[in-house]
């Protein structure tokens, strides 16, 4: 169990392979490109396959096929590329395929995309947002577990900083829990018997005529309700006596945590709630952590997206104010000037003082 210095992209790829991922397909796009490159280099070494797909649409289709055979498989991109995969995402959710998606976003503006999706109909992906490379490794492995457990796609929402920051990490190897048998997958062996399978997103059964989407979709909805009940994950710090609770996820939370600790040193009563699962959103944990606070300050690097979920959790019991905003570097890759400890501390101080914080 040696620690190795790895950028987030490499560490997560190693974690995926250690978790049994044997297929990857993707199309380059900054800052996701390195994830693809590492899969391309490392998967063949373990007998896996990485395809440099000709487009994002083809990448997600290839992952679909690999998953259908029961393999652990993944794809990924940035928000732009994932936008192209939205039809597949919603239908793969309905086909109950355990897809894992590496989303290396250009910032946090894709929160809605990740949590509400742009596919059609009712469906949800589990969305995990690591704060740092260590957690990137852990959540990558969790992603494969959850995907299989629920037969539902899981997205890992990272960004440029997560992909490119190197830390000394340990990749846990195969002390994985026993995997559930994939008695739904197709291996081609069941034809000619009347027990052949039809892996499809419509609830269509072999030997019957027509489809019955309503009961099928309701069953999926019930599954999503169950996931929402059992799979929320949340990290809180110093919320017990807090006047202001800061809510932040992913890389932004790293800066928020640093600022909260510094401000605490100065005696400020400020706490942090960090949703680890963006969906299901940790509504209850957040509500509990914010009981009695004077203000909830939402620090997100976008025009205001997660704040909806925060408000839905607080439901008017305290003012919920944005202290983040759109922030971008010149290349548009998502490392905006908001990623600055002083800047973040000033924003939080503003919230503590009840000032309105300009985006």
């Amino acid at each position, binding site marked *: 169990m040696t620690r190795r210095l790895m950028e987030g992209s490499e560490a997560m790829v190693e974690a995926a392979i250690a978790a049994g991922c*044997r*297929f990857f*397909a993707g199309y380059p796009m900054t800052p996701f490109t390195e994830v693809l490159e590492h899969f391309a280099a490392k998967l063949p070494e373990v007998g896996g*396959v990485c*395809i440099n*797909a*000709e*487009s994002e*649409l*083809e*990448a*997600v*289709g*290839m*992952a*679909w*096929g*690999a*998953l*259908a*055979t*029961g*393999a652990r*498989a993944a794809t990924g991109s940035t928000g732009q590329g994932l936008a192209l995969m939205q*039809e*597949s995402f919603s*239908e793969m959710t309905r*086909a109950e395929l355990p897809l894992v998606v590496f989303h290396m976003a250009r910032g946090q503006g894709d929160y809605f995309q990740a949590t509400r999706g742009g596919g059609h109909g009712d469906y949800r992906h589990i969305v995990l947002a690591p704060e740092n490379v260590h957690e990137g490794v852990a959540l990558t492995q969790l992603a494969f577990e959850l995907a299989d457990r629920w037969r539902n796609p899981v997205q890992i929402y990272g960004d440029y900083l997560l992909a490119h920051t190197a830390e000394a990490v340990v990749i846990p190897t195969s002390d994985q829990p026993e995997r559930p048998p994939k008695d739904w997958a*197709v*291996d*081609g*062996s*069941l*034809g*000619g*018997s*009347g027990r*052949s*399978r*039809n*892996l*499809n*997103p*419509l609830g*269509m*059964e*072999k*030997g*019957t*005529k*027509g489809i019955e989407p309503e009961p099928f979709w309701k069953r999926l909805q019930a599954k999503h309700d169950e996931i929402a009940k059992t799979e929320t994950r949340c990290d809180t710090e110093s919320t017990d006596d807090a006047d202001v609770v800061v809510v932040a996820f992913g890389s932004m939370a790293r800066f928020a945590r640093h600022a909260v600790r510094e401000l605490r040193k100065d005696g400020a009563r400020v706490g942090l709630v960090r949703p680890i699962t963006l969906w299901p959103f940790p509504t209850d944990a957040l509500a509990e952590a914010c009981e009695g606070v004077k203000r909830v300050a939402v620090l997100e690097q976008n025009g205001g997206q997660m704040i909806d979920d925060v408000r839905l959790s607080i439901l008017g019991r305290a003012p919920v104010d944005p202290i983040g905003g759109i922030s971008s570097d010149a290349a548009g890759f998502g490392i905006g000037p908001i990623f600055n400890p002083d800047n973040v501390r000033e924003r939080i101080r503003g919230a503590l003082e009840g000032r309105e914080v300009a985006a």
Partner: protein
Amino acid sequence: MSRDPLRVIQTSVTQSPVIKTDQPPSEPAKQKGRFRPALLLHEDHDLCPGCGEPIAIRLMLEVIEELGQAQNSIGVIGIGCYTAFTSSMDVDLVQALHGRAPSVATGAKRMRPDSLIFTLQGDGDMVNEGLQEVIHTAARGESVTCILLNNGVFGETGGHMTATTVLGQRTKNSIEGRDADYHGYPILIGDLLAQLGGTVYAARGSVHDAAGVVKTKNMLRRAFESQLEGGGFSFVEILTMCPTGWFVPTAEGPGYLDNVLGAVHATGELKNHERLVTTAQLLAETRPSGP
């Protein structure tokens, strides 16, 4: 429904006795053909009268059975009228989205290189929505077999023009006939695929008559065999009747297919390993007098 309910069926009524056909013969006889192929769970389907797709599906299932691949096949099915057969085809299947089957087949093949992996797609699915998928899959040389049911229209949504609709063909949204200036030219998908480095077999058959059916079955066999030999990409295009989408009387479907679609999308083998033939060459051979 293209069938005009008022049209009176003209049959040559002779004085001959009509033979009872409601049960097997009582005289000693050997059964040479069954209602449905072994790999079909039941005969029922909702496709239109005179549709060519069920005929093609029969062939495909027969070949899988005959090659001993019933328990070693995964079909990836597109979205079109033929999709209705996913509940009755007795092979393992994956339902793909409209246009996306070749990529799904690719992922499956890479994880199960020894299985027979095929796609079943319509022309709308493969040549419109998913043109890029099939070309890249062929160029990549994936050892999968893509089967195209080409009727020159979107059957399922009501008979609109596709990228294979031939010039002059009437469709729901080219009601005066496909016009090159406004709607462009049909794509000879077989030619595009045949010339790619990764393609080992490509052929175009038809189910408009019994001879065509027999030839098409052989094409399917050769395509699957190429895949099992592990060579690369194989492709069979099958021209099928869609009287509904064509706005022609049901019984005129085969003739329309032969005279209209077939005069552009000529049938024959386009590539068999080294041998490469263009549709233009096939046309010159099979219809020297022109359409």
